[in-house]
């Protein structure tokens, strides 16, 4: 019964949606303090390569690799974040875009470690490791009536879902805390914020590093879901794609990033029946949206309306 509902194709798309939500959040967090970062593809690549290399060469468990990947990306985020804070607006965007390209070029040229543009094969797959682990505990997928590969993709999906919920919980909590208020005030006017005694350097680095951490985490998970990475996966196309998730969904509220990533990942798949035209439709949709609703589909006003209709509370 359960076995018929769980289609691996849907679970696979679901997994990519969740990874893209993490990436969209990694753009959203720095953006909520007024920093436009296009380095998400680069940080994602650092996370992916770190985790892949550690698990391939040192046989480390995947969760150690993923954490190491995310930490490596956030360390890089601190190192790059501190000097780049002298920049703002488009200048920061260009600097981070450049950073992403530099990272990609390093992956291309560091042949002995990364195998250049051919990429890394044989990365341990998250779902299969979970399957083996649970078999070690005496659990067989057949016990709950599903096939092995359904179990593999279901477990990936659930792990990602838990992580995304945890990240969302963390970011929403942070927004309603002192840190979040500080970030918001920097976003509105950083001079005014500074004169109110907010240490803007500190908070900006915090936001930027969190973005790098989430991107690195998403990248590491991407590597273990797909099982193969090459520098082409982390080109500036990816950075722009991730930025579009956030801008499309609405960059003022976190739920906008989630919606954007969900909608824009699902759409090319849903549009498969028109084959060659699907990216044309995708493009037209973006143009129309930017023309009629430059702030993105969801914004604070829209959410407020929903709040009136429902009870108070609701999501932010």
């Amino acid at each position, binding site marked *: 019964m359960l076995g018929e509902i769980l*289609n*691996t*194709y849907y679970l*696979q*798309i679901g997994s*990519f949606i969740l990874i893209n939500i993490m990436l969209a959040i990694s753009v959203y967090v720095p953006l909520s303090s007024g920093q436009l970062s296009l380095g998400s593809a680069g940080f994602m690549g650092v996370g992916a390569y770190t985790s892949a290399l550690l698990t391939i060469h040192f046989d480390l468990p995947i969760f150690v690799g993923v954490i190491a990947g995310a930490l490596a990306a956030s360390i890089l985020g601190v190192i790059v974040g501190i000097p780049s804070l002298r920049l703002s607006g488009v200048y920061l965007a260009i600097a981070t875009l450049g950073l992403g390209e530099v990272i990609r*070029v390093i992956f*291309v*040229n560091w042949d002995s470690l990364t195998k*250049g*543009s*051919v*990429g890394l*094969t044989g990365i341990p797959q998250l779902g299969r490791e979970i399957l083996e682990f649970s078999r070690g505990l005496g659990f067989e997928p057949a016990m709950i009536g599903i096939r092995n*590969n359904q179990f593999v993709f279901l477990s990936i999906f659930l792990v990602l879902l838990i992580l995304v919920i945890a990240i969302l919980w963390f970011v929403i909590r942070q927004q309603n805390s002192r840190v979040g208020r500080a970030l918001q005030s920097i976003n509105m006017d950083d001079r005014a914020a500074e004169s109110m005694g907010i240490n803007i350097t500190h908070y900006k680095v915090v936001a930027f590093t969190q973005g790098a951490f989430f991107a690195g985490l998403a990248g590491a998970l*991407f590597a273990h879901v*797909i*099982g*193969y*990475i*090459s*520098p*082409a*996966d982390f080109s500036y196309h990816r950075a722009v794609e991730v930025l579009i998730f956030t801008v499309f969904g609405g960059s003022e509220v976190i739920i906008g990033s989630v919606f954007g990533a969900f909608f824009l990942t*699902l*759409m*090319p*798949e*849903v*549009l*498969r*029946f028109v*084959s*060659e035209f*699907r*990216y044309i439709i995708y493009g037209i949709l973006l143009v129309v949206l930017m023309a*009629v*609703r430059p702030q993105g*589909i969801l914004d604070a006003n*829209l959410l407020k*309306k929903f709040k009136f209709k429902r009870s108070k509370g609701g999501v932010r």
Partner: protein
Amino acid sequence: MRKLNKKLFSILSIVMLLLLAACGGGNTTTESNSNTGEDGVLSAKFGVISYLTGAGAAYGEAITNGLKLAQQDINALGEVNIELVIEDSAGKADQALNAAQKIMSDDSITAIIGPTLSTEFFAVAPEVDLNGIPILGTSTTVDGIPEIGDYVFRNAVPESLAIPAAIEKAVERTGATKVAMIYGNDDALTKGGFEVMERTAKEMGLEITTIETYQEGQSDYNAQLTKIKNTNPDLILASALYNEGAVIMDQARKMGIEIPFVGGNGFNSPQAIEIAGDAANGLIVATPYFGESSDPKIVEFNEKYEKEFGKKPDQFAAQAYDALFIYADALKRAGSSDREAFRESLAETKDLEGILGKFSFDEVGDVIMDVTVLEIKDGKFIEFE
């Protein structure tokens, strides 16, 4: 403001309805797995993953056109009936994997052809292999593809077959002892080709004077070419795609470098002559497909293709055409569309007569076939003597 919001809501709701409708349509693909059609002809469904949208869509288009043409010809013969399910990969590994999952979720699929790029293939093939579905690459030339698993095959001539043949012939005629190398280091195809070139040159005892690199989309190669010129080589090994390779040759000739170039699979295109003109003379490549050949099979294929799609076929179209014939042959011998039986008979493919010549698989599922070495002379590809 409120009016605008109302409008937006209606637009949004329409979009959502469309989405829902599309989702509904996608669920109706479960059919019974019947081996034979109404008239007793053995039929099978093959999935195709191809690069149909994006920068490299020309490759995917050539491949799907070749497959469609082969499908018509095979079904017209009436021995087997083939159905193709074509999905787009947009040149991205994650999209290719989605397409593969979509194809695999249909239990009536016997085997898969594609994806187009080696970087997509590396992501897709292990998953397909684990599910026990045969998969064949028609354009994936990088080392290590058929080694992925028992169900993984290719009929694309790998660089490790084409490049050594071209270098050997070139060295034989020119008596070269010193070679310079240039390659694009951020593309899996040209990088893979370079590795083979370097290995071959070392095995043949050639002295490598310098190794230069460039990046995709570069337009000025004077710095690299000046260095190459100063080392005074007898031959230049260039692992480049035709669009960059042609520009490299053009600039080299303008600089007074008159020695021959040896290229890989990606350099082999009539487009190279169109871009570089006379400067393309002296390019040596090895290929399974020679479009100007007077072989009646190739002439016939060219005519049919041009009539159907309004342009000349290239190597990728020809390889895809042959690929489907390989599948059809295996299907005939297997006698059923069962995946396991199909894999067995596919692996046994031997000396199959295709438009590119005799074709066999070796023990890992890689291609065994003869390649032709070509050179450009007086603005035309001719066979190299």
